């Protein structure tokens, strides 16, 4: 109890201070709300449009969480596969970079053709955008296993599967969690951007809400939707962070 409070208050204080400052500046300079809204304007937009914001957040969350889950699973699997043999890494690692650099806009037509508009396509967008950090960190983690322990597993003739589950995965955990931390934010941005190109207005998520609010110059609503996306990202991040802390606390220097 005491511990989690210690973790929560510093960002909360920072949050409140930053927003007070922001409100002050905007009010002082008389910036119009359509340009940069004050926190109070945004708050009003949140209240007025709470139902829409909520369903939009729900739609985006679904895609982001599913995409993140896929990234976690497939990213760890791919990182593992790449780490298993030097030639596999050499032959395929460069191509995983491709996944990261391909603009979603370019593959969106294909996604839509295969998966249609909506959740499936948006989930795949979130997945594509958040996959690489998990792969790269898993690979890095697996390759820095204590060589002495690796020798021990060879000595006991442990076989690739046991070596994976009992040595490489546990040893790579700190790195995997770093990858997941990065992926949590990217999955949200992937879902939001995915909606721009493959979403549908019938199940409007935060991405399309941002777009249509922005077209109608409802800047406070734009900021509210962006805040919702960030909150979603932060929630995913916090979950990853706490599970990481929980799993590693006993033995890893970084968790102390």
């Amino acid at each position, binding site marked *: 109890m005491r511990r989690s409070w210690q973790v929560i208050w510093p960002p909360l204080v920072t949050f409140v201070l930053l927003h007070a400052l922001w409100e002050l500046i905007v009010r002082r300079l008389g910036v119009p709300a359509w340009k940069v809204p004050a926190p109070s304007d945004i708050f009003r937009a949140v209240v007025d449009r709470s139902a829409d914001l909520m369903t939009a957040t729900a739609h985006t969350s679904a895609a982001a969480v599913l995409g993140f889950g896929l990234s976690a699973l497939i990213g760890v699997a791919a990182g593992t596969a790449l780490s298993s043999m030097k030639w596999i890494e050499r032959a395929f690692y460069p191509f995983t970079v491709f996944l990261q650099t391909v603009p979603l806009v370019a593959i969106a037509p294909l996604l*839509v*053709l295969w998966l249609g508009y909506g959740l499936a396509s948006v989930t795949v967008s979130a997945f594509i955008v958040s996959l690489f950090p998990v792969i790269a960190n898993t690979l890095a983690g697996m390759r820095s296993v204590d060589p002495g322990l690796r020798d021990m597993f060879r000595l006991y003739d442990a076989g690739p599967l046991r070596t994976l589950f009992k040595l490489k995965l546990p040893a790579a955990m700190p790195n995997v969690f770093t990858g997941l931390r990065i992926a949590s934010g990217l999955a949200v941005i992937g879902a939001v951007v995915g909606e721009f190109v493959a979403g549908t207005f019938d199940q409007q998520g935060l991405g399309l809400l941002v777009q249509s609010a922005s077209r109608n*110059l409802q800047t406070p609503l734009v900021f509210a939707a962006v805040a919702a996306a960030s909150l979603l990202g932060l929630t995913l991040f916090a979950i990853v962070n706490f599970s990481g802390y929980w799993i590693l606390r006993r033995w890893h220097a970084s968790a102390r």
Partner: protein
Amino acid sequence: GKGPSDPSATSTGGQTPVKLILNWKPEPEFGGFYEARDKGLYKNHGLNVTIESAPEHVTQLVAAGKTQFGIMAADEIVTARSQGIDIVALFAVYQTNPQGIMTHASRGLKEIGDVLRNPGTLAVQPGLAYVNYLEKKYAPVRVQVVPYDYSIVRFMASPDFSQQCFITAEPLAAKKQGADPRVFLIADSGFNPYAGIVVTRGDYLKNNRKTVENFIAATRDGWQNYLDDPMAANATMGQLNKEMDARTFADAAEAQKPLIETDETREHGLGTMSNERWQTLIGQLQQLKKISSPPPAGECFVNP
């Protein structure tokens, strides 16, 4: 694409299910479709119509047979046909193209050419045919051309900023926030492709002529009703698009009327298209090098 035995088009219980994909959110530019759906006009013609609204990629979905009907612009249809994609125009909501360039009235500019030939910034989507047309026609262009991002914040913020607009959308939003926008229609510069066009695939048209005719007939009635009284459909669409208020819906419906109803339509009915105008467009696109092999104008459209 799929063969003639398109399973989604076979009738169930007397009603043929068909899908129409709009290329943006429910807004007055689609009023007639919602009117026809809600007033049961489609049903009366034996159709069970689903309307979906998506931001992009209608061309691909129609071409791939994922939907029976979609909304596209005339230049997109020509481009698609020149690539061998069998898409046919059926019904053009806008006889006059509703795209325009919006600038600040305070600048005192007289025509589109002034926007391009003076310093300033012009935001347009990449790859639009009419932008190439304007650039060619009003060369040398001195305005800085930048991408349009669906927002009018930058327009509001700088006095020498101009941007592409849909006559029923951005100018109204800007006016509501206290700006004084001046809109020049692209059509006035001599480039005037039909817009808001209902399309389908060629083979679907061939094999389901009756369904298509029914769909267009109902759509035409829907639009006529909407032009007479947009209130009901606006209310429906307002539920689906809360970023636009009721007032703006009404204003937009009023503003687009003259682009939909012309002497031509009073004579031949709403949505009608002429071979001559398709021919003109194809010629223009060819000159702009947007297409390499010009499709015959007669294949681009039918007036069912």
